[in-house]
């Protein structure tokens, strides 16, 4: 195997594809926004040249597809130029979504691990719960999100918790499935060895099952943290666009503020990327601590 070079195998191809995408985006923006410019020109009774159309499509107020630099300008404007406490600051909205995501992810991960431990140690639980855990993954659980929000609002629980509950629900299944697999990953030989050491179930758990489940845990945590962000965003939709990235999306779609939608979308993407990266770093840190070779 040839040594992988960072420049040739990573940076170059990825940046080429990204640049290509941005170029396609610009062309698409010009193409999609052009009809509006032609309409305005026709209504004003003036001829409009090609170069002018292209120039105008890059700076429309409410474009069909905003040009990349418009989105970047909007993100910069709403993050750096607004006070963080302001309702127009994207950081404020991102924080609202992030707090719900993290709370839900925390509860979901803890619950998932506990349930997985129960499933591994109790046969009845395994047989009766596991098929339902798997079946529940095939159910579009996000569909319940608005109902949970509205119902909990009706009995006086509002704010962070309902959204976090949706994130919990979504993030908990990948953790259960991954952890059950991980806690069962020690081979019979290893379990037998623990047996010959006369290890108690607790010792077997902490010294063998738990450490060997770590790779599985972190893999499912990555999925779980991404999906809890989705849960939090969708959870913000039915509350009537109060605050959060989901609310920004909904408000943007109500008022035709496409630039705002794209800015919120990119913020959500950045948030997801950072969260997944943090879990990834924790993963490699834990594996290193356990003495795994990179």
């Amino acid at each position, binding site marked *: 195997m040839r040594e992988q070079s960072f420049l040739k195998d990573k940076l170059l191809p990825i940046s080429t594809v990204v640049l290509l995408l941005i170029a396609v985006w610009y062309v698409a923006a010009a193409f999609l926004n052009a009809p509006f410019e032609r309409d305005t020109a026709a209504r004003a009774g003036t001829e409009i040249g090609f170069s002018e159309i292209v120039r105008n499509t890059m700076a429309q107020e409410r474009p069909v597809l905003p040009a990349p630099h418009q989105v970047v300008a909007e993100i910069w404007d709403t993050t750096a130029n607004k006070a963080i406490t302001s309702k127009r600051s994207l950081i404020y909205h991102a924080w609202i979504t992030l707090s719900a995501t993290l709370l839900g992810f925390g509860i979901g991960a803890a619950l998932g691990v506990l349930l997985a431990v129960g499933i591994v140690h109790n046969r009845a639980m395994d047989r009766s719960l596991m098929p339902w855990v798997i079946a529940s993954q095939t159910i579009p659980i996000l569909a319940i999100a608005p109902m949970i929000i509205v119902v909990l609002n009706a009995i006086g629980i509002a704010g962070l918790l309902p959204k976090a509950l949706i994130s919990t629900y979504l993030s908990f299944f990948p953790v259960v499935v991954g952890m059950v697999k991980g806690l069962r990953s020690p081979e019979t030989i290893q379990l037998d060895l623990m047996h010959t050491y006369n290890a108690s179930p607790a010792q077997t758990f902490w010294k063998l099952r738990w450490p060997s489940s770590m790779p599985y845990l972190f893999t499912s945590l990555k999925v779980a943290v991404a999906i809890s962000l989705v849960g939090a965003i969708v959870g913000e939709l039915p509350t009537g666009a109060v605050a959060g990235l989901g609310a920004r999306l909904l408000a943007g779609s109500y008022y035709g503020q496409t630039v705002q*939608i794209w800015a919120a979308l990119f913020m959500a993407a950045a948030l997801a990327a950072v969260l997944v990266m943090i879990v990834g770093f924790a993963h490699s840190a834990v594996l290193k601590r356990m003495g795994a070779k990179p």
Partner: protein
Amino acid sequence: MNIPVFAGAVLFWLAAWAFNEWLVRQHFAHRTAASAARFAVPLLFGITILVLWEGIVRGFGIPSVLLPAPSMIWQRLVNSLPTLAADFRQTFLKAVLTGYALGCGLGFVVAILIDRSPFLQKGLLPLGNFVSALPVIGVAPIMVMWFGFDWQSKVAVVVIMTFFPMLVNTVSGLAAASHMERDLMRTYAATWWQTLVKLRLPAAWPFIFNALKINSTLALIGAIVAEFFGTPIVGMGFRISTEVGRMNVDMVWAEIAVAAVAGSAFYGVVALAERAVTFWHPSVRSGRA
């Protein structure tokens, strides 16, 4: 408060639990009896949940606005079958199936197209993995704006959601055939096309089916959530969001039940197809024995 009903439900729960505990410890001499027992345990658990749910709702007199009893949901489901069928047609048959076929097909085709260019693969694969972790569902309002309120915009959302998992999985699936096997194809003087059809595609099926299974869930979620952003007056997502507003929670649950059955059936069909196509794979073979 109706204590006897609640107590009865709890008693049923304890009895079912005890029965399950007993059942999983049994060793059946007969094969069919063993598989029947394996089937009965989760079924009994599901029934127990429903009974407990019914018991709690009736026992504590929980208002149906908060949580309707299963019997009430069932009644509503049976009574409003035409509405549910229309929603199912709009969301599932039109939006989900079209989008699923288009998105998966497109992902597959693009994966084959970039197969000959390692450069593009190296560029697209990390990007695809990255996009898979993003809240793609956020493009829903944009798609509704572009393609209108009807099912076409939902198709677009579903296509975007299903494209990247399919792309990533197909590309890694096409790389799954080992060097030894590929060398053998070379010694046969097989063309790229022959190698693809006879060796690499069959080796890629488990990966492709993995993506198909992931996408079956994603597609339904995408279509339903996209309907929250604007839709004609029919569709599962539309029904859920409006009936929540009108506090007809039993109708919402009926819709969720339909979505759950549709989602599970969809997944089941894909899983069955997987068993038929990848019959040689260890995970399928061990499942049969």
